[in-house]
């Protein structure tokens, strides 16, 4: 399971929306393979009776009132947008 070929790297890169050069794809294949080989040791652990942990301080469903609060000014939030027009963020064409 731990060998990650360049086709697999390309598949993951597509999922992650990251462009990789040919050189990066090759080095990524070797490095990710090496790291996955290292984490492979977990496969030998008996976890059959263990529940997974995703929250360490025991909090569950934290609620708050659903109330209207003031937000930041629109111009301030748009100030970081690479391109904007008439108070909206401009994006490139969505369809090919």
């Amino acid at each position, binding site marked *: 399971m731990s060998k990650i070929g360049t086709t697999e790297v390309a598949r993951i890169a597509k999922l992650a929306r990251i462009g990789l050069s040919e050189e990066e794809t090759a080095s990524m294949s070797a490095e990710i393979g090496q790291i996955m080989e290292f984490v492979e040791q977990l496969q030998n652990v008996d976890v059959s009776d263990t529940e997974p*942990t995703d*929250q360490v301080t025991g909090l569950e469903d934290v609620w708050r009132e659903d109330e209207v609060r003031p937000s930041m000014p629109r111009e301030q939030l748009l100030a970081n947008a690479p391109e904007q027009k008439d108070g909206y963020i401009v994006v*490139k064409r969505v369809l090919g």
Partner: protein
Amino acid sequence: MINITRPIAELVADVKAGKLTAADLVQASLARIAETEDYHAVLELNPAALEQAKAVDARVKAGEDLPLAGIPFIAKDNYLTTGTHTTAASNILRPFRSPYEGPVIRRLKAAGAIMVAKANLDAFAHGGSTENSDFGPTKNPHDPTRIPGGSSGGSAAAVALGQATFAVGTDTGGSIRQPAAMCGVVGLKPTYGLVPRTGVVAMASSNDVLGPLTRSVADAGLVLDVMAGPDPTDATTIPRDKGSYAVKAGSLKGLNIGLIKEYLGQGLDPEIKAKLLATVARLKAAGAEVHEISLPATELALAAYYILVPAEVSSNLARYDGVRFGHSSPKATNLEETYRLSREEGFGPEAKRRIMIGTYVLSSGYYDAYYKRAQKVRTQLIGQFNEAFKKYDLLLGPTSPNPAFPLGSKSGDPLALYLEDVMTVAVNLVGIPAVSIPFGTASGNLPVGLQLMAPQRAERRLLEAAAAAEDLIGDWSAR
């Protein structure tokens, strides 16, 4: 010449008594930053620092009781701050200016502290050497040919260089404690959720914590006392202790300390081991009960960490898409290319690697084998720490297996760099507090740190013991 490296309590007392002003302290801090800029601890100065200092002086004069009156500090550049850039030392955030600040920066300012600069880090806090900064590495104050540790390497170096009285950093797998150890300062990682994460660039949200880097345990307690406490914008925050975290040294007599056996094993520099055991002998002579304890799951912690953290990283870093903020590729002709090219151009090799690993372990068909299994190992690790804390008040070990290594010596070998975190990651996965204090030197004059760990929310116990150990150690640079 004004000395900003004195204890915070003394500086604050002098500011309140009118013997010093916030403006004096900030000017001294800025002068020291300029004098030591070759270390590249700092990425950007706060242009309004002096003006903000004068405002603090006015508040002090008006009789406001400010716990950090006039104290200059440096924030790791993954803290969102207005009036400067916030880059996380990454090219993709190079143009970013935050429209808001989080509760921690607001609390520090309200307490009278003044942010003088933003500190360098491994881009997005991915790394343990600060060599992954897209803007170039920071140099170790004790040997400029070596790394300062990371990812809060700029923050740790800044404190060691005396550029500010304290710094604030983030710790996801050791990023406060390990650079603190390598730079000879104190680094405190609080309980998960004690300090709100809002206003910090997210890395791995179930592990990320914010904490101080200081010149003493007393200073760390004073700063934590300002940082800690819930905030409605971070639903994972927990209540703070009713008492102050600014505690005095406690008694070592009768304190039960467990020395983690696995951290003394393979990979630990023999000189660090010998000196650590000598320090343990002194703790015992001072009345502490120290016994070895085995926590076998700590040997699996690193493997679990390097599944869980990249998974969370890949999710958190999905927001950098070239659309709403940050770098956007000028070469893109459609939306898909905006995503792909902006991320290709803006992320450095380590961020890409972690996003790729995270995407892989979360992808269809692999989720149960990797991510879910790692979460179960995390449960086992938590169980072993809980058992240990039934018997021991505190746990002890080295912070890092080795002193700071030469710049460039491990680049090109990502796994070798990951192994640097072997003694720090378990604390994050378990969510407990830990502090690294300098206790000696190795390989010549290079500082090394020891790590004390306490159960969740036991920061006061942790800091009382750490302050006592600090007193016992005395001048670490002579040991």
